[in-house]
């Protein structure tokens, strides 16, 4: 069964339509790659899923229940949006780590704040916070960053920062982890370490949506690929098919720009 179902999402910025009739679904444990040229609406789509933008039309369902319906204001209440966001994790192109906190604190902060809402927080405060610390350490270890737990973001390379950001997103155990061009802001020699981490997440069956310009990576790691252009989904299908044997002319043209260099 699909964990995520997106139906007929449409989004305008003023008069310009940025997303049009976007529908797709994603199964538990699958990785979906979204490719497309600059300005095609990929970031906006991820931002809609994370409630950073409000779609003008359409619905978003997670685990069979509708968490957003543009036509139903009851699904858009501020108080509930905060909780619904937690279905999704987001890794930003520019990392957006909190500069005043160490790598470890970046990973644990949100969980610590959320745990204050637990009814047993007062009694078990110490044990709860300790557990969060341990989990944070484990996540950083998984990212190969045990040694860097107490470093501040400015003391880390771009690749290390992005891995901290991935750990931070994983800390809240989202159902679906979104990546917006996770390696685009990195020097070429640093992209490998980040892609490796994402690849291992895919092997562990983490449900993911990855916006990327790394075509070989999308082909090898994603189960499905969506090609977007001008705010619409032009083509979607199994990763290998779309990237190696695209059916649509627009997809072919887009991909040919990548195979040339």
């Amino acid at each position, binding site marked *: 069964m699909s964990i995520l179902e997106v139906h007929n999402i449409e989004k305008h910025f003023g008069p310009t339509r940025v997303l049009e009739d976007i529908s797709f679904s994603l199964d538990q444990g699958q990785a979906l790659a979204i490719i497309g040229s600059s300005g095609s609406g990929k970031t906006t789509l991820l931002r809609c899923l994370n409630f950073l933008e409000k779609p003008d039309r359409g619905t978003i369902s997670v685990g069979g229940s509708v968490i957003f319906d543009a036509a139903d204001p009851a699904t858009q209440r501020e108080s509930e949006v905060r909780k619904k*966001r937690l279905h999704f994790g987001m890794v930003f192109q520019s990392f957006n780590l909190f500069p005043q906190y160490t790598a470890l604190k970046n990973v644990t902060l949100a969980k610590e704040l959320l745990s204050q809402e637990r009814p047993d927080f007062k009694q078990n405060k110490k044990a709860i916070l300790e557990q969060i610390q341990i989990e944070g350490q484990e996540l950083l270890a998984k990212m190969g960053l045990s040694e860097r737990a107490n470093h501040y973001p*400015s003391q880390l390379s771009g690749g290390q920062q992005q891995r901290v950001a991935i750990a931070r997103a994983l800390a809240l155990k989202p159902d679906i982890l979104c990546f917006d061009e996770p390696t685009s802001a990195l020097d070429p020699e640093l992209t490998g370490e980040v892609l490796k981490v994402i690849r291992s997440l895919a092997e562990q069956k983490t449900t993911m949506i990855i916006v990327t310009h790394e075509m070989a990576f999308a082909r090898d790691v994603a189960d499905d690929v969506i090609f977007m252009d001008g705010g619409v989904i032009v083509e979607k299908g199994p990763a290998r098919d779309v990237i190696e044997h695209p059916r649509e002319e627009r997809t072919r043209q887009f991909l040919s720009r990548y195979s040339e260099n």
Partner: protein
Amino acid sequence: MFLTVIGALNEGFIQTLKLFAVTLIGALPLGLVVSFGSMSRFTPLRWLSRTVVWIIRGTPLMLQLIIIFYIPGYLLPSGSPWPSGESGRFLASAVAFIINYACYFSEIYRGGIQGVPVGQQEAGEVLGMTKGQIFRHITLLQMIKRIVPPMSNEIITLVKDTSIARIISMQEIIWAGYAFLKGSHGYSGLLWPLFFTGIYYLLFNGLLTLLFGWVEKKLDYFR
């Protein structure tokens, strides 16, 4: 003679410090209110705030002080609202300084608040934090870090600007030093007390510079 002069200068410097302190206590919070006005999504309020800031920053503090001290006396049938004597002069100075500095501070706040990248706010949001948590745990310290350097400049300027209150004869330290030139305490034609006031400013601003340097250093651990 020296002790007489120092005594008189000390007295003037206490007035200077009082005006300095009262201005900070009033203008630091008022500036924050004005900066929220200047960033408001409610257009008339934004326009009003920005116009006030433009006028206050675009005209000399000395002129504002003169207007605040003298004009109400002409306009109000009941005469000047300021108490007579030094207390009235101090009060009028405090009001003028607070308004003037609140406008300068508001622009510093605005720069500090708008200087924090939206990505910080968004990163907090997608992690399920509330607006209050995002402000307290993420943006506040980053704002303070941005605000401290321009704020310390402005505060050191304020120390020197307090001497402008002399224009309405508030008895701050320059007034006290000048008195020995004009004639007071049985002395006249003394030039050095006036120059000597400079030492007070230098020492006090030196102290402030050290303090702000220390704060900046404390916030140096992140970028």
